[in-house]
């Protein structure tokens, strides 16, 4: 047994060391696999980045109340009356003066210009009260200052500054007939809120003719994740037709919007992997053919056909794993951290980064490994069955 293993090992080392002789064919196989893996990882990194951004946006400590079935802040409406009732609900944290901590918010869409294409895009303008800052402990003003309630002033997220034109600090912006001034830039640690413009809720309400309605109510939870008290109150009151969920759950659902991309990416990569598989098979059959005499000679001097089998299989796997690593590295170098933006569930731009992860890397390598295994096993079978007599034939 030990000798069989050492035989196999010898043949594997021999095959790998003779790879340069079959350089171009081997490179073709490596290249095909690397392209397939790079395509797969690009799609996965895109969906992953989007999902991570939205997952990082929602907090377990915050409850979000919206109109039943609205599914996005844009579609929701909540009346002032409902907000006043809900503010008394059990389970809402209270500040030093024993007032419940909550924020009634508005969410309207305005035009921005996407920097890369210079085209108009939908940007969310969030009307927020100072309570909204108490809720979100990750908000930090990184330049300029906070807006003053009652004035047409905006603060903009860092993501907006990076991706869109027209909202630089100090700039005056017109929304229809009203003029607003950008007075500050905020950061929320990379979450989707950074794709937003923020202004005083009551000012937005008047300037956008929203009467006394808001779109969502956010509350600070006494106990993270526990929304039962508020839910109970909302359900027991027939005047209310509202959904209550944690902000984390709300954004997690929005983050799944690019799931389709994952399915599409996998489908496409698997189809392309079949093409790469044809390349791998071609390479390996050629390799077996060119090593025919060598394999037969080894058999003649006592090597088992198992060694020919595993030698060939190993060669194929090594090639495809190199391809997989190259593909993964290329997509990592060129795409990881690249910023993009797309239309999210709230009908407005969400800025996110392509994000590679060890899990995605593993997926890429597994795909490469499968190509290598399938692409190696048939040629290996042929190698194992090569007649020993081939060694004694004089090749012309």
């Amino acid at each position, binding site marked *: 047994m030990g000798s069989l293993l050492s035989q196999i090992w010898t043949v594997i080392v021999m095959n790998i060391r003779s790879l340069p002789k079959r350089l*171009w*064919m081997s*490179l*073709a196989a490596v*290249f*095909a696999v690397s*392209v*397939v893996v*790079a*395509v797969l990882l690009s799609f996965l990194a895109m969906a992953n980045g989007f999902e991570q951004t939205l997952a990082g946006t929602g907090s377990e400590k915050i409850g979000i109340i919206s*109109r*039943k*079935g*609205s*599914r*996005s802040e*844009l*579609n929701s*409406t909540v009346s002032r009356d409902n907000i006043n009732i809900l503010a008394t609900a059990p389970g809402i944290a209270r500040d030093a003066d024993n007032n419940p901590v909550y924020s009634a918010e508005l969410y*309207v*869409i*305005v*035009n921005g210009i*996407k920097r*890369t*294409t210079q*085209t*108009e*895009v*939908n940007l969310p303008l969030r009307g927020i009260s100072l309570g909204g800052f108490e809720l979100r402990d990750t908000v930090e003003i990184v330049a300029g200052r906070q807006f003053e309630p009652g004035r047409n002033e905006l603060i903009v997220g860092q993501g907006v500054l990076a991706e869109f034109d027209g909202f630089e600090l100090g700039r005056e912006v017109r*929304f*229809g*007939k009203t003029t607003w001034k950008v007075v500050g830039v905020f950061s929320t640690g990379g979450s989707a809120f950074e794709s937003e413009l923020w202004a005083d809720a009551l000012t937005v309400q008047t300037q*956008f*003719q929203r009467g006394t309605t808001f779109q969502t109510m956010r509350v600070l939870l006494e106990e993270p994740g526990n929304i039962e008290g508020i839910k109970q109150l909302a359900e027991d009151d027939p005047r209310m*037709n509202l959904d209550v969920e944690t902000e984390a759950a709300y954004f997690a659902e929005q983050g799944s919007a690019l799931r389709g991309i994952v399915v599409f990416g996998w489908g*496409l990569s698997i*189809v*392309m992997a*079949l*093409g*790469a598989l*044809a*390349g791998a*098979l*071609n390479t390996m*059959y*050629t390799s077996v053919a060119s090593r025919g005499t060598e394999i037969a000679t080894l058999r003649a001097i006592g090597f088992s056909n198992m060694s020919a089998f595993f030698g060939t299989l190993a060669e194929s796997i090594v090639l495809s794993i190199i391809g997989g690593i190259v593909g993964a590295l290329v997509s990592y170098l060129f795409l990881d951290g690249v910023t*993009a*933006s*797309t*239309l999210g569930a709230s*009908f407005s*731009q969400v800025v996110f980064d392509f994000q590679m992860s060890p899990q995605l890397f593993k997926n890429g390598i597994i795909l490469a490994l499968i190509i290598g295994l399938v692409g190696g096993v048939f040629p290996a079978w042929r190698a194992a069955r090569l007649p020993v007599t081939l060694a004694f034939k004089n*090749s*012309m």
Partner: protein
Amino acid sequence: MSSLYLVFKNLTRSKLRLFLTLFATFIAFMVYGTLTAFQMALNAGVELSADDRLIVVNKIHFTQSLPISHFNKVKSVEGVDAVTHLNWFGGYYQDPQKLFTMMAVDPESFLDVYDDYVLTPAEAEAWLKNRQGLIAGESVARTFGWKVGDRIPINSNIFSQRDGSTVWDFDVVAIYRGKDEQSDSNSVYFHYKYFNETQSFGGNFIGWMGVRTTSPDKNEQVVNAIDDLFANTPAETDTMPEVAFNKAFIEQIGNIGLILTSVVVAAFFIILVIVGNSMVLSIRERTNEIGVMKTLGFTSPAIFRMVLAESVAIAMIGGLLGLLAARGLIHLISNAPIQLPPLIMDGTSVFKAILIMLALGLITGIVPAVNALRLNIVTALSRS
């Protein structure tokens, strides 16, 4: 004739290799055909925009509404042939995840401005008469299994009725087809009056307007006239050609065109390398034979052409089979109960594909063909 036979013989010399190279080519063109159909579907909104149609939206943003009085004022603007108004309803049927385009419209003027929807006069008549009637596109009707005569409940994720319910009942009075193969048939239209009387937000606002001008030359004049008309009113407007609006909307999603093109290029690169390499190899294996052929009197250019013919044949056969498969795939996807814009493969994309096949065939064949051309008989025969 005889050289064609030789090409055929050379091609089928190693059946396994032929199969593998054909298969790689097949996959690449299948990917090309399918993704091109997706790309065309995405651009269809832009391609099919009528050049005599304009869109009038609120200047702040198109999600902000306009007062209905704007509609009557636009009617009398010079150069306006017809005008209609639309409201986004946010409709979904049973599953809130499966949103579709559903709009409250004024049916008469809607059919007047948007002539892309094919309805028989009887169907149009039935819709006009039934205030709770809706017309649904073929695709959305197929997705949800709606038939003419069905009474269906549809939810809105934005609006509610006065009693707080978010469900409206509708009669399916007609299922329309698009005028063009690529026209959208994923949308549902119903009466604005039904919407306006029942929803609880307070009425008389509209989402945006569609305008047909008397002639595309008048577009600019009409755009200015409408925007001037509402300048300095609480709801200023932004009027633009339909094509500009649709284009901007598609671009919001991101550069999908670039993504799809990159994937197709990647797929072609794979086969370029695989097929190119195996061509080089198969000609090298035949070095001896080529020497013999040259000895027999085949001219070098003839051999050069035969090698190229071989590589072009592989690209063409694999490519055409791939396109055929893409067509089948597109058919399958189009008939699946999922909401997608209509996918088609048109003459232009087939023509482009054939050009790419030719180019691929020539590129993969050129190196071995030149090698064969230059091959000296003595070296060829002495190399074994």
